[in-house]
């Protein structure tokens, strides 16, 4: 009997010891940390993503303040035709004497605008359709998901190209086209999450409490599925910037004289530009690769940082 008590005492002591000195210290840290702090701490572990974030912020600011930074008007003749990079013209001039550096800044502006707006539109459509399909189920779910299947069956680029051929190409039509074609992935993602959430006790509790539908959908379900939507949206952003570039490169996207990263590369289809004037096509290409890659890295780190099952 005595022995048992002793063991119990020892055990308790040990437990107390561990709670007091090791776990407690750690626990305090975690408790005092807000959700956003946790996410940021985890995000910081990805060095490439951190560098990417800095790059995206710098390029984003450069694009935002293009009118202040750009040394010349992007659409006006400023120097010699096809001048090599040098004094006065950081990246040289194009075939009709426009400053490539200024055009690059404005092109980033347009490409980021297209990417962000298209992502916003497709996310809103996808979230709404996914919420309806997942929450209400039944006929609505069947109709929406089959429609999603149909849209996904058409090769994406082909659908975009056909739409671009039907509607007059231009900045806003390209934003709308990309926005209206990109949503199926998000719709499927949201639907899957909503299906899982609907079975949780807190949603059932809301139902029993007789909360209005609007509250359940937008104040309970949506906030709990924001993290995966955010991660998915970064990849949509990267993809729509690539698509804008491809479309504008083919001459079906943003129309000149407005500069976009894609249509700046358009000139490289001519052999002289490709061989003798690399300053006309290499910089916009590199900017696309850097921007898209940085966005992808950020998305990947966010996936890890926002994952509730991730350790640390």
């Amino acid at each position, binding site marked *: 009997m005595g022995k048992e008590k002793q063991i119990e005492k020892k055990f308790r002591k040990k437990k107390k010891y561990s709670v007091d000195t090791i776990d407690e210290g750690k626990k305090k840290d975690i408790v005092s940390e807000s959700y956003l702090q946790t996410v940021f701490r985890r995000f910081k572990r990805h060095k*490439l993503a951190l560098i990417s974030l800095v790059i995206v912020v710098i390029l984003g600011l450069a694009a935002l303040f293009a009118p202040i930074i750009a040394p010349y008007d992007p659409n006006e003749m400023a120097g010699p035709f096809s001048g090599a990079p040098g004094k006065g013209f950081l990246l040289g001039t194009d075939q009709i004497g426009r400053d490539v550096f200024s055009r690059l800044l404005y092109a980033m502006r347009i490409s980021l605008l297209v990417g962000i707006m298209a992502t916003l539109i497709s996310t809103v459509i996808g979230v709404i359709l996914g919420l309806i399909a997942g929450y209400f189920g039944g006929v609505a779910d069947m109709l929406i998901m*089959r*429609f999603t*299947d*149909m*849209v*996904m*069956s*058409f*090769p*994406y*680029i*082909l*659908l975009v*190209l*056909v739409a*671009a*051929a*039907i509607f007059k190409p231009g900045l806003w039509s390209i934003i709308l086209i990309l926005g209206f074609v990109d949503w199926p992935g998000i719709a499927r993602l949201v639907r899957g999450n909503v299906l899982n959430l609907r079975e949780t006790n807190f949603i059932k509790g809301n139902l029993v409490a007789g909360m209005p539908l609007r509250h359940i959908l937008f104040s309970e379900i949506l906030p709990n599925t924001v993290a995966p939507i955010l991660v998915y949206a970064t990849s949509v952003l*990267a993809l729509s910037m*690539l698509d804008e*570039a*491809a479309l504008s*490169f*083919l001459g*079906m996207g943003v129309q000149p004289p407005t500069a976009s990263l*894609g249509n700046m*590369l358009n000139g*490289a289809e001519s052999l002289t530009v*490709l*061989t003798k004037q*690399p300053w006309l*096509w290499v910089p916009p*290409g590199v900017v*696309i*690769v850097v921007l*898209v*890659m940085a966005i*992808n*890295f950020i998305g*990947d780190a966010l996936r890890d940082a926002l994952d509730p099952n991730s350790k640390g």
Partner: protein
Amino acid sequence: MSKYILKRILIAIPVLIGITIIDYAIMCLAGSPLEMLKGPRVSEAAVEAKKIALGLDKPFYIQYFVWLGQLLHGNLGYSVKSYQPVSEMIKSHLGPTLLLMGVSLIVSLIMAVPAGIYSAIHQYSKGDYTVVTLSFLGSSIPGFFLSLLLIYLFTIKLGWLPSSGMTTLGTDGGFLDVVKHMIMPVLVLATSMAGSNIRYIRSAVLEILQQDYLRTARAKGIGRFKVIYKHALRNALVPIVTVIGMEIPMLFGGAVIIEQVFSWPGLGLMTMSAIISRDYPVIMGVCLLSAIVVLIANLITDILYALVDPTITFE
């Protein structure tokens, strides 16, 4: 099993019908073919006669069924530009595209499968970081920009590879000549696909490596090599099947742009010129064909998936 396959096929039918409706709706949205006829030398009466001849005076849904009926007979309509039957045009351009797509798919798998498995086995090592970073580069570089870089390097600077067409003009080609023309477009298509596939295969293999049966295999002490190559890889087949299924629509899309850059005489080049000249019957024919191919590819993927993984049942 057969019940699952049957159900999967039954679900594909309404999707297929929906695809034809969307296809037809886009064609109607694009404008009436009569507009192409209108001109100063064409009288109103002639346009009216043509309208009746084409059945355009009938209501929308009847036109759709007429079109669908023609479709079932293999008649996709006639090109507005060249007056050739669309099905003939597709047939003659299909070969080069299938060749390009098939080889690219194989090359991308040869790049992605070993890289993804290596990366998963050596998780968080330097090699893993390199592979993952490269895979991000692969999926972030626009195909046309990579094409331009390759053309600059291999055609202009080194003069090793031809930059356009499928065979050298004036010759009848031959196997080696076609291979030479294919290297760059295949490389571009395979790179962009391998980029996302490496990460997909990596995470799938990582998941498999954490399974209980692999812990058991390790605990048996059969050795690392056997654990990975005998037990893990067999199960990694499932995600690889999915990857192939996912790639089909990507390939179709990627081919349009890459064929344009390299003047590859395939479906993509044909579609692009049809888009530029607004040759809607051709565009719609290609859209319909590719949508059906994608649908069938998805169907086969799902069925293969169920064959490889017996735990999957239809919900």
